[in-house]
């Protein structure tokens, strides 16, 4: 017998090591993700160009929730725009109310009473906690973890219980008024708030135990979705995303409004600007917000009962009892409801720190009772624009946590 056939010995060895080196023919694949994808909270469509599982490029299409916010505002009175602002960022509607009302007050030249300012700070910090809880909880849910989501939502329910006590609504608060707020603090509010804050802290501790050092979360969050300090600034990214990249910019500290200059709180920052830093920044901001709420409660208890609206005939609504019995007040009420305040002609831009970053309102008035222009600077939209930068070269699965921590809220992004 001759030896083995030659072709067997000459044939190259085929093992898994050789497979790795072999140049396979691949081509880029286009994948449509959304507009209604189960792993994105928000209606947005991504067109992803994939090389295997690696993202080569990403195109973001927004606008699915566009309802013509600005056009609607230009058709009603200055008051009638407030409920629309609830529907901008519906996780923290009080913050949107506040931004708009403070911008109108800037045009009117109004200074609100101290009690009102503390109430505004307290309610906006509660909103911030609700927003961050949604962001962190939903991010876990979209990474297939139900338990931390439930902890987060349970804590958010407690925040919304407090909102309900304050203004009667949980989600679409419509709480802030031009020149004041809807109601003062109800009787039992301070006690309930302290009890709820204690429970929220316990839930945050549970959340922390399940998530912060969990190997799966750390692996999926650390080093993904990085956006450097310089890129953040070039793209006008603000809020927790910018702070996670190491820039301690917070409108509450940089240009203090309301009574933030009298409040003791810290601005947490991250180091590299990845999703893990964003998570840590959000969690720390919640703790800081709870601290602010406690300081507000203390101050509000010292201030006691009293007016929570500015006493300016242009925006003040007369007391109900007098409306029924006096002609003057009846006329004033009628004018206030049907026409609303006339705002002096001019333009003004006012920015507040919302849960997602700088929420600005640029208003133009022609001196009439109807706004000429209501521009909302939506932090969600502007923070979403550099998303392709954050995920280029990453795995397809990294889009999910990155998009979660960008926290695009459709109502605010698309208006």
């Amino acid at each position: 017998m001759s030896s083995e056939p030659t072709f067997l010995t000459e044939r190259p060895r085929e093992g898994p090591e050789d497979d790795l080196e072999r140049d396979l023919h691949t081509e880029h694949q286009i994948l449509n993700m959304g507009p209604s994808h189960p792993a994105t909270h928000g209606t947005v469509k991504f067109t992803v160009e994939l090389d295997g599982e690696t993202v080569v490029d990403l195109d973001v299409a927004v606008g699915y929730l566009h309802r013509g916010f600005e056009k609607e505002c230009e058709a009603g009175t200055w008051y009638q725009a407030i409920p629309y602002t609830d529907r901008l960022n519906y996780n923290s509607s009080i913050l949107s109310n506040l931004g708009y009302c403070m911008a109108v007050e800037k045009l009117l030249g109004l200074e609100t009473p101290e009690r009102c300012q503390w109430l505004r700070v307290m309610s906006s910090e509660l909103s911030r906690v609700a927003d961050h809880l949604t962001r962190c909880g939903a991010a876990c849910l979209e990474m297939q973890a139900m338990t931390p989501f439930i902890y987060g939502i349970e804590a958010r329910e407690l925040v919304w219980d407090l909102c309900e006590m304050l203004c009667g609504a949980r989600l679409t608060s419509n709480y802030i008024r031009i020149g004041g707020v809807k109601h003062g603090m109800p009787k039992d509010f301070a006690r309930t708030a302290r009890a709820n804050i204690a429970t929220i802290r316990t839930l945050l501790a549970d959340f922390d135990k399940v998530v912060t050092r969990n190997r799966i979360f750390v692996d999926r969050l650390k080093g993904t979705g990085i956006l450097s300090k310089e890129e953040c600034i070039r793209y006008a990214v603000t809020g927790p995303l910018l702070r996670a990249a190491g820039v301690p910019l917070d409108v509450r500290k940089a240009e203090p409004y309301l009574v933030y200059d009298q409040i003791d709180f810290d601005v947490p920052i991250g180091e590299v600007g990845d999703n893990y830093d964003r998570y840590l920044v959000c969690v720390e901001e919640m703790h800081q917000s709870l601290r602010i709420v406690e300081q507000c409660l203390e101050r509000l208890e010292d201030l006691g009962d009293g007016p929570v609206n500015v006493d300016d005939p242009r925006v003040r609504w007369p007391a109900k009892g007098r409306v029924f019995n006096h002609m003057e007040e009846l006329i004033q009420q009628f004018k206030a409801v049907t026409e609303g305040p006339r705002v002096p002609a001019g333009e003004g831009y006012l920015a507040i720190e919302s849960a997602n970053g700088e929420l600005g309102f640029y208003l133009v008035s022609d001196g009439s009772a109807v706004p000429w222009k209501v521009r909302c600077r939506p932090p969600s939209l502007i923070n979403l624009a550099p998303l392709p930068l954050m995920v280029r070269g990453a795995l397809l699965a990294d889009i999910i946590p990155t998009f979660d921590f960008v926290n695009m809220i459709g109502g605010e992004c698309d208006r």
Partner: protein
Amino acid sequence: MEDHGSAALGRLLAAMPEAIQATHADLGDATALVDPAAVVEVLRFLRDDADCEFEMLTDLCAVDYLGETPRFEVVYHLYSVTKNHRLRVKARVAEDPCEIATACDLWPSANWMEREVWDLYGIRFTGHPELKRLLLYEDFEGHPLRKDYPKERRQPLVGPRN
């Protein structure tokens, strides 16, 4: 024209007086109305000058002053992170040709905001890398934030397209 106590406005007036048409600081917002042909140069100066250092184009929007000529106004809100000051720059845009130069080369944040203004006002930003609608769909007719676009106007429903 005066600087109204704003250091950035003062620097701008000293460096490019011919490009500035008006200034004001109503309600504490320092504002410069600039020549639309020079708007990119003005913005570049404001970004690069050591005393201004506006690294951030916070907001870009438009206003329709129907009945005035020029009809539109493009409004830029600038913010300096290091200096913590703000400036508003405005430029008027005529109805025809309804265009102004893009600021995308200066700040990438202008990309989406200019697309939004094109979408809702129909102001064309020349030199923009990809000027297409942002919030509305391609088949939408008209630009809805123009004052002469009726609020009640309906648009045909179009199906999804991939």
